[in-house]
């Protein structure tokens, strides 16, 4: 008895074959795809190829406008096309796309001269993540004042969901601000270390330039260290570290949403007890 062909069992839509051709221009269109009345369908199938590739390049251009500004549109789109074909998105939420783009740029030979480019991409990715992050109310400056002076070193912070730290040995803050249109363009020395933090105290994303030692301090706080531990680490890394400035920055930028009080104290004025109501 003859065995039925594979095709008899196959699902009528060869999604794997249809999809593979969309990301690989060298690949032929799937056999089952035709034009009307048996016409050739290369150009018709190419509409999908074009839609997929171009719309994903456009998505990257929307996420990384400063990178595009720095390298020019033609260069950016060629680089993005390579990325899109090698690393298509897995999530239908395109505002999450491009997680690996900074690392990809780092390995992209034609961009090697622009050593700061991957850091700019990291910051732009962090910016969009912050833009969509959950709404939380940052801690009010006077909340810190409720902690007894001698216990301040024992507190910790719960960071805002939008908070991100982007370390850099390049002039990242100004590269970003100038190429996103937030600061006038001027010739700068790109080799001055300007690490930043990204926050979103209300709806608008803020990018704050960090002083020496602050990246270590914030990284330790975000990892759950107490203020005392984080400050000691920061000082060990940078003798110029200024705790007062660092704390003022955290509060002004809305980087934290809650104080983790040391045992036996409370970060808030005592809550009204039921009997008082």
């Amino acid at each position, binding site marked *: 008895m003859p065995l039925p062909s594979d095709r008899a069992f196959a*699902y*009528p*839509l060869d*999604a*794997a074959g*249809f*999809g593979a051709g*969309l*990301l690989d221009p060298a690949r032929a*269109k799937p*056999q*089952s*795809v*035709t*034009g*009307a*009345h048996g*016409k*050739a*369908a*290369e*150009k*018709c*199938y190419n*509409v*999908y190829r*074009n*839609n*997929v590739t*171009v*719309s*994903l*390049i*456009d*998505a990257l251009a*929307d*996420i990384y406008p400063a990178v595009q500004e720095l390298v020019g549109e033609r260069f950016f789109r060629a680089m993005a096309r390579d990325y899109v074909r090698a690393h*298509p*998105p*897995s*999530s*239908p*939420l*395109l*505002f999450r*796309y491009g997680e690996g783009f900074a690392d990809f740029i780092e390995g992209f030979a034609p961009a090697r001269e622009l050593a700061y480019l991957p850091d700019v991409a990291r910051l732009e990715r962090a910016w*969009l993540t*912050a*833009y*969509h*992050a*959950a*709404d939380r109310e940052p801690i009010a400056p006077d909340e810190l004042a409720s902690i007894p002076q001698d216990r301040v070193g024992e507190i910790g912070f719960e960071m805002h*969901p*939008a908070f991100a730290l982007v370390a850099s040995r390049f002039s990242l803050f100004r590269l970003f601000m100038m190429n996103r249109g937030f600061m006038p363009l001027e010739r700068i020395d790109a080799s001055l270390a300007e690490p930043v933090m990204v926050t*979103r105290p*209300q*709806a*608008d994303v803020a990018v704050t330039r960090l002083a020496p030692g602050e990246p270590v301090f914030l990284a330790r706080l975000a990892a759950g260290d107490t203020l005392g531990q984080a400050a000691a680490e920061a000082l060990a890394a940078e003798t110029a570290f200024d705790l007062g400035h660092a704390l003022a920055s955290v509060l002004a930028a809305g980087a934290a949403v809650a104080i983790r009080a040391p045992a036996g104290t409370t970060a808030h004025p005592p809550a009204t007890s039921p009997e008082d109501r």
Partner: protein
Amino acid sequence: MTDSPLARHVAPAAATASAIGKTRSAAPARAPAAIAAAAGVSFKHDHLAAILDDPGTVGFLEVHAENYMGDGGHPHRTLERVRRDFPLSLHGVCMSIGGPGPLNEDHLARFAALVERYQPGLVSEHLAWSTHDDVFFNDLLPLPYTPQTLDRVCEHIDRMQTAIGRPILLENPATYVLFDNATMSETDFLRAIVARTGCGLLLDVNNVFVSATNHGYSARQYLDDFPLDHVGEIHLAGHSEQTDDEGDPLLIDSHDRPVADPVWALYDAVIAATGPIPTLVEWDSDLPEWPVLRAQAEAANRILSAASQPHRQGHRHALAV
């Protein structure tokens, strides 16, 4: 330039805080959920201030669900704001209902949360696929119409309708290729889906014109075969034109320009046959100034008003013109 209607759903560029206002009451009053048989438009953040300032006769706004699947920030503040003034239509573009694999459960949960939060008057998705084997292609890809794909599509629609707790409207696609293994017409396929899942249909008249031109059949004939009684919403949009392998017109569903005259004529014929139906003018890239888009919606509203005049009602259910 992209020709994909899905092109832009990453981030609205403009900060919109000033248009939204700084204060929000705890439980803002909202426009009713139900959408009347009037014209609406695709909502773009760039138009926010202008829409609030002068909505004209625009009766509802439609948004791509995926743009509001982030956790917080401007997108939700903006949507809450427009929801106060307008009923909303929630239009999904990435559910991949036409794909062979199971629907993405995370995506279903996000979609259900949006339906719960914003109480849209209409909820719709596409007869198309966009994800396979963990790759999201960001386009509305076609499928062959066969009894086997029909089973799969119906399973997916059942799953989606269960997840969101209400029926959806399914949109007919604009397509650029055909499949040599297809055994059913698109209209028979849609009719069977409606019968099996209880979903309604979103009739995209531009898609009808685009597909009919690309595949060499009559758009009027297609509409005669279409289950018009189940249409809960109509889409209108602009298309661009290329040429195919043999030099014939190849239309692209580009959503980047005004609705074309032949599409208005088809729409007029549909509305004369069905009576007024909520109608959306889509415009997703190369956005015009607000008055241009508003004028497109007002043109649709004139056709809808004419159809609600008593002397026109005798023509219903006779599409041929």
